């Protein structure tokens, strides 16, 4: 036997259906059959991290979104890719560029049986937007405030109609509203935030049953009075499984092992390397979807050598993104052609990713004054071209790959792994040299994303809050601000295209890749597919 830990080797006895078919090379296949518990009607989802919270107004992680998404509904929701569909809202229409009229579906019930009305929606908005509206544990402003953009006020027209006034035009509204889930005014005013956290109550397909310590495990139960969910997204109706459990398994290998051992049904964040292996396992389905976390290596443009645009461009040419995609991501990623990920609704398709061209890179570096010495190291004024690339643990493989490729052209690049929370202030203070990081773009709209990364830093605002490169271009700043309030899609495209082009040319970052989100499930899980915004929607999922 080979000493691989893919333990049993057996000749496959019967052909097994593969959900995502890829070429299977080996005739002999690893058979680690998840043991199905007969008659089990509980769906177990393994998350990689504990949700950061369970209050729809006050959390900041994707795991939280996933759990909340199944407990609560929003006015609108998103399909598995980027399309937005009405959910609680029956219709939404712009009265003018700054005013939105929302008509609510009738008969939408909260889990306690009360009906969802306009007051609940208004209360939800205010709870998210108003300063210090969340009183527990200390009064503070909701973490989700940004998703309401230039929110001004909300008025109730009648029990089923809400009019929202924005202080400025807000073209991204639909994509952003997806991220606001409606709570019950009566319930929250009664039990307070603390009560809401302890026993969440929404209109979603599942009711809250219990949670363990630090949301390590959250147990949900089918909500019998569910109104059915977005009518555009089939199936419409009550949830298929009677119970859903979210369980945190941080170790990648343990998570996979748990799926193989039949202990869980769906696992998130499957490491790309494992895809081929998992696909060979009968009884396991692997699916992936374009993710929403593009990865860049941001240069500190306020510091030599990255003050020189030629160096920045050169580095973009020096890295073979396709090789990284093929090897590090097992083919499950796309190269980035600039500031926005290709799946963003406003990404400029004409901007092609920098090609891998070592000669060009060296030529550009030479123009910038960096010439290789005898050993091939790039030198200028007797000093080598050396810098430290900071990154976080989850991006270590891609960062190391980049560093290796840079060393290949004679740059002395080394890696330092940080905790994000620790390195972020240093980055914003421009203390570091280069940073490989990602930034979630789950709204598929430039807003919420482009102003964070590429607008110059304006302290105390959302602008430049993720601008780790120190990039500051007045034109780009203006374009970003213009785009935020331009309601005409065509015009917006023009604005964003110009901004993207500027960023592309000035290359404040080494544009790397957009990895796919990969998930796996046991074969008995049906009608399941990962969502690109990674909000796992269990409403549709059935168990065989």
């Amino acid at each position, binding site marked *: 036997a080979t000493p691989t830990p893919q333990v049993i080797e057996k000749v496959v006895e019967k052909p097994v259906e593969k959900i995502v078919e890829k070429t299977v090379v080996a005739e002999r296949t690893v058979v680690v059959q998840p043991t199905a518990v007969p008659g089990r009607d509980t769906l177990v989802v393994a998350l990689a991290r504990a949700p950061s919270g369970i209050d729809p107004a006050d959390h900041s992680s994707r795991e939280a979104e996933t759990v909340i998404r199944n407990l609560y509904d929003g006015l609108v929701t998103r399909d598995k890719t980027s399309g937005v569909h009405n959910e609680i809202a029956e219709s939404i229409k712009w009265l003018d560029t700054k005013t939105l009229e929302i008509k609510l579906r009738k008969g939408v019930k909260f889990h306690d049986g009360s009906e969802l009305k306009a007051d609940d929606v208004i209360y939800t908005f205010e709870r998210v937007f108003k300063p210090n509206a969340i009183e527990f544990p200390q009064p503070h402003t909701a973490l989700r405030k940004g998703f309401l953009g230039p929110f001004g006020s909300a008025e109730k027209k009648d029990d089923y109609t809400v009019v929202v006034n924005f202080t400025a035009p807000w073209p991204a509204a639909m994509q952003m509203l997806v991220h606001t889930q409606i709570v019950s005014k009566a319930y929250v005013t009664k039990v307070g935030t603390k009560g809401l956290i302890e026993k969440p109550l929404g209109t979603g397909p599942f009711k809250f049953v219990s949670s363990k310590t630090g949301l390590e495990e959250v147990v949900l139960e089918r909500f019998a009075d569910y109104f059915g969910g977005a009518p555009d997204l089939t199936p419409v109706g009550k949830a298929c499984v009677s119970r859903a459990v979210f369980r945190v398994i941080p*170790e990648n290998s343990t998570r*996979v092992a748990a799926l193989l051992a039949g202990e869980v049904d769906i696992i998130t964040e499957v490491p790309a*390397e*494992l895809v081929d292996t998992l696909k060979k396992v009968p009884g396991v389905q692997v699916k992936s979807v374009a993710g929403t976390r593009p990865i860049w290596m941001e240069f500190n443009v306020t510091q030599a050598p990255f003050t020189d645009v030629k160096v920045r461009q050169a580095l973009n040419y020096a890295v073979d993104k396709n090789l990284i995609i093929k090897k*590090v991501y097992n083919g499950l990623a796309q190269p980035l052609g600039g500031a926005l990920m290709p799946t963003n609704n406003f990404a400029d398709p004409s901007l092609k990713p920098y090609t891998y061209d070592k000669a060009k890179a060296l030529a550009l570096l030479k123009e910038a004054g960096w010439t290789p010495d005898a050993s091939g190291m790039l030198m200028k004024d007797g000093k080598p071209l050396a810098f430290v690339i900071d990154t976080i643990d989850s991006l270590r493989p891609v960062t190391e790959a980049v560093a*290796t490729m840079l060393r290949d052209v004679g740059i002395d690049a080394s*890696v330092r*792994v940080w905790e994000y929370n620790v390195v972020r202030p240093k980055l914003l203070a421009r203390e570091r040299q280069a940073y490989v990081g990602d930034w979630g773009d789950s709204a598929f709209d430039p807003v919420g994303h482009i102003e964070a990364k590429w607008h110059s830093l304006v302290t105390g605002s959302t602008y430049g809050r993720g601008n780790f490169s120190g990039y500051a271009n007045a034109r780009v700043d203006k374009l970003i601000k213009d785009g935020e309030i331009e309601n005409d899609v065509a015009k917006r495209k023009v604005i964003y295209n110009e901004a993207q082009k500027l960023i592309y040319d000035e290359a404040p970052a080494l544009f790397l890749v957009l990895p796919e989100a990969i998930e796996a499930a046991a074969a008995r899980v049906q009608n399941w597919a990962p969502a690109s915004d990674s909000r796992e929607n269990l409403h549709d999922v059935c168990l065989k």
Partner: protein
Amino acid sequence: MTAHAPTRVARGWDYSFRIRLRLWWRALAELGYELWQRPVVLLGGIVVAAFILAAVFAAQITIHDPTRGTLLLRFEPPAWEAEGNWKYPLGTDDQGRDLLTRIIYGTRVSLAVGLLSVAISVIVGTALGAFAGYYRGWLDEILSRFADLLLAFPFLIFAIGVMAFLGPGFVNLVMALAFKGWVEFFRLVRGEVLGERTKEYVDGARVAGQSNLAIIVSEILPNVIQSVFVLGTLRLGYMIIMEASLSFLGLGIQPPTPAWGSMVASGRDYLLVAWWVSTFPGLAILLLVVAINIFGEGLRDILDPRLKIE
């Protein structure tokens, strides 16, 4: 030379040095003989020596660069596997770097962290322990209380805390380990000195006119140093595991510097596709630490006369 010439000629410093050397040599030979009698211990010693040599001559015995690879060679299996290649005897890792090369270079990190942290612990602990045990009084009181305090923290928790405080990195790692490591030596030496100082030979030295410092340094310490040495050897293995554990948690050495713990840590995600990436560094830790422990235990048997059956 006449018959009446003095039987012994004048002896200078070099003479006593030569005598010392001869005595050391004899002691070493005796140790060697004892080792020879214990093949397993000897084997342990040889393995440790091999690791040390590998660490020192890493650059000479490897043909690859430990920090450079190419993604094209990602996850080459070990040479004896079907698709293996003898150029990469133990295969390659996720960055296409030769695993054997990285393990050999990783020896450097592990041994350096282990040796340095043990060395610092030994020096600090022995010095403080000797003074505290000999002089007693408030110095002893303060140091012992502080040692008790540090002992209240489990080692790994303390080390993690210090690493979180100092941030990752080689020097910090050594400091974090030594910061608690000295306590053991302090307590050992203090205890032994407490025992030694009541022995008659100390009184003998005092009666022979030795000063307190001379008694500590030249009379008592030589009697204590052996147990320090044995404990140091055993602690070395522990420190290496600690280094690996901290690296495993991401608080150790930074990439691309190869460190065994972080190699196991980063390789564990690939266990199902490339078992070797995590397994071989793990085995390296196991092998080195086992060898160190066997050797240390053997030394204890040899050096500790209490265990000798006359």
